[in-house]
């Protein structure tokens, strides 16, 4: 009989091993899945995990994409991880991401065609504020009325998508777009175009912000008393209140940080890789970032690595679609599986597996 025995304290070794184990298990089961779809499994795995970086022909194009995709994922996941640590489940980052993009873009377009160097920073601030404000809705409702933040933040994603639709087709539509939906293209507006900082690296301001966020989150969570309070609230809410931590403040802090970071990510995306507000510029980063946060064990450095890995599966998935005709959706499933296997193997961190013959051992 297999029995679980709670460890006296979480295993450090397993904390690091489980994400790697989850990746391996995902590759194995993913391989089986590809085989069932009639695709060569080993080749598929290689195409997803290896070719984007090292393929002689494609790597030149896809390598910069790694940072382009990882940037927003990391930026959003860092914010989410802080809330998750406190037991605050903001799963509406996608909505905050959209609202950040819409607000930032709207502020910028209001000054079109200004060439001021202050405009882009202003847009970044507006983007952060947009995401922050959108996250404040569940925060206020949770602290004021005790409304569940999971459901509210998620409902607000659908609301944000409708606002995006109306912005792209209506009030932000480019006057020179000949009636097509979509805003002005920021790529043709040098003052605000969030271009690569170093050519062919994919490094734009959003990636820089993501790195800063990683360092900032590390300092906050490991060293600062507020980070300690956030962790304490998640670990033992009553102990936190006993310590003197205000749960209301923690809710505002956590949702505020994650909303602002998601909003910023949206602004960097829309002024950079996406280039304009369109009805579907958002590509689900807000949801994938949830996987990134967990895969990175809610730890800033882990999230950095997990964000890069997840970006790799995006690019690899596109490559596999191109080269092997793999359905696009299989990558989504692949990412979901990764989260599932991580949660499954997580049991080893807190429990020891014992093989025993019942009680009479």
């Amino acid at each position, binding site marked *: 009989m297999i029995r679980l025995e709670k460890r*006296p*304290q*979480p295993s450090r070794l397993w904390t690091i091993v489980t994400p790697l184990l989850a990746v391996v298990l995902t590759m194995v089961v993913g391989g089986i899945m590809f085989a069932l779809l009639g695709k060569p499994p080993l080749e598929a795995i290689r195409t997803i995990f290896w070719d984007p970086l090292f393929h002689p022909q494609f790597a030149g194009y896809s390598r910069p994409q790694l940072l382009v995709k990882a940037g927003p994922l990391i930026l959003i996941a860092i914010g989410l991880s802080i809330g998750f640590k406190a037991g605050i489940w903001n799963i509406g980052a996608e909505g905050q991401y959209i609202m950040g993009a819409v607000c930032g873009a709207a502020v910028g377009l209001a000054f079109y065609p200004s060439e001021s160097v202050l405009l882009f920073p202003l847009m970044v601030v507006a983007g952060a504020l947009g995401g922050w404000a959108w996250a404040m809705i569940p925060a206020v409702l949770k602290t004021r009325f005790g409304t569940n933040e999971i459901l509210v933040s998620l409902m607000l994603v659908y609301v944000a998508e409708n606002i995006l639709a109306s912005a792209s087709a209506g009030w932000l539509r480019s006057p020179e777009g000949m009636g097509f939906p979509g805003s002005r293209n920021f790529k043709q507006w040098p003052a605000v175009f969030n271009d690569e900082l170093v050519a062919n690296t994919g490094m734009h301001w959003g990636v820089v912000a993501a790195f800063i966020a990683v360092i900032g989150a590390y300092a906050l969570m490991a*060293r*600062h*008393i*507020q980070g*300690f309070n956030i*962790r*304490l609230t998640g*670990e*033992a809410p*009553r*102990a*936190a*209140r*006993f*310590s*003197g931590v*205000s749960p209301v403040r923690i809710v505002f802090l956590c949702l505020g940080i994650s909303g602002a970071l998601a909003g910023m990510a949206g602004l960097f995306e829309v002024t950079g890789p996406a280039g304009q507000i369109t009805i579907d510029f958002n590509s689900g980063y807000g949801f994938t970032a949830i996987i990134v946060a967990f895969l990175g064990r809610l730890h800033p450095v882990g999230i950095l690595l997990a964000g890069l890995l997840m970006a790799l599966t995006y690019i690899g998935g596109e490559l596999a679609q191109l080269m092997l005709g793999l359905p696009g959706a299989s990558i989504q499933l692949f990412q979901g599986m990764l989260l599932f296997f991580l949660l499954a193997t997580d049991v080893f961190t807190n429990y020891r597996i014992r093989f025993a013959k019942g*009680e*009479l051992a």
Partner: protein
Amino acid sequence: MATLLSIRGLTKAYPGVVANDDVSFDIDKGEIHALLGENGAGKSTLVKMIFGLVKPDAGEMVLDGAAYTPGKPSDARRAGVAMVFQHFSLFEALDVAENVALGMENPPKPRDLARQIREVSETYGLPLDPTRTVGTLSAGERQRVEIIRCLLQNPRLLIMDEPTSVLTPQEVEILFKTLNKLRAEGTSILYISHKLEEIRALCDTASILRRGKNVATIVPRDVTARQMAELMVGASFDTPAARAGEKGEVLLRTDKLSLPAPGAFGTPLREASLEVRAGEVLGIGGVAGNGQDELLMALSGERLAPAGSIFFKGRDVSRTGPIGRRDAGLLSGPEERLGHAAAPNMSLTENAVLTGARREGLVRGGFIDWGKSKGFAEKVIERFDVRTPGPGTAARALSGGNLQKFVVGREILQNPDVFIVNQPTWGVDAAAAAAIRQALLDLAAQGAAIVVISQDLDELMEISDRFAALNEGRLSPARAVSELDIEKIGLMMGGAHDMEVAHVDS
């Protein structure tokens, strides 16, 4: 008298500890047999084996002449063995009848069951309404639900685990009448307790466990409580030194402190007034669930009170949170160690920061000085003899007694002017309990004012200068311990404060 259950050589070992070592004794038909021992002596393991929750490593049991090897509780129930747990397995949101039905193997139809519950409750003098929601019942009434649940199965052996720990003295009397009636009808009772006078009053025989071994089986009426205590503890241990000295100025005072209940099943505080002076220990007794937790939360600042109800050194701190009160010198220790006083998954160093951050200067410019924090944790570990590999250990890895020493020590080492503590020695072995009580008395001797909330009356009588009782969130006026006896305490705990005053005045 014929033997009902014969226990022969029961042994059960867990990694690192032998919980029961070759325990043997007989329970006769129609007797009340006490099982006596300290916390950790192996009482609960033994009972779990009898009730089929744990399988013995060695030894056997014979029930009424037949081999008895229960594999699970339902086997035990079918054989006529029923048990009333110390921590009730009741469902607050369900009603009495539903709770009773859940504890039965083959419950009758709901209407018949309600009728049977009424019958049994009348027969045994345990009034109970089958349609009431359990969450609204007092601890004593909840125990009745458990007892009636057992009685409906016509048990031959009824096991009761520390049944009086949740009762007022008056409720204890009712319970004893019920148990005596059952004995007269031929039911055997295994009565687990560490309250010696109670056992002398009620039980026919007593088996005493110490460190897993059955050290003696005696007739309680023939020995003194002191002899039983010596058998139970084995060695003598330090009793707290008597204290003398003048009491100083009033450090903490509440004035008609009222607070609504924190949740659906909590207790509101109703005009609770107290004052405690420098150098003084105020003991607050009462049956569990009468506002102990709520009083501690109001005094610690976790829940803010209406302005003008809590004064510290003459200053109104009612609207000051835990941090402000700690800064001023008012510290506290909640009852629940894991999850309230300490965060289970965090290290002892982190748990030291939990309350010591500011008074011990562990935070500078918003950033935590982990080196200094570790030093503070190590100091607590050393001074309070906390047995742990080191300050990096998670709180949940410590035994209850060791963690209790840590959380109490953490506050005491911060030199509070006022220290409020709830159940300071709950679930702690005798030696550690004595050490904690001594530390509290030492702190008082240094001029601190101390409020000890506890359900252990012996403890309160031992260390308090004055005693007050909580009843449904009301606090009785405090009386000097020297003028109290068990009857007066019982009346205070039962809520009859005014009668008590009138009696003393006359």
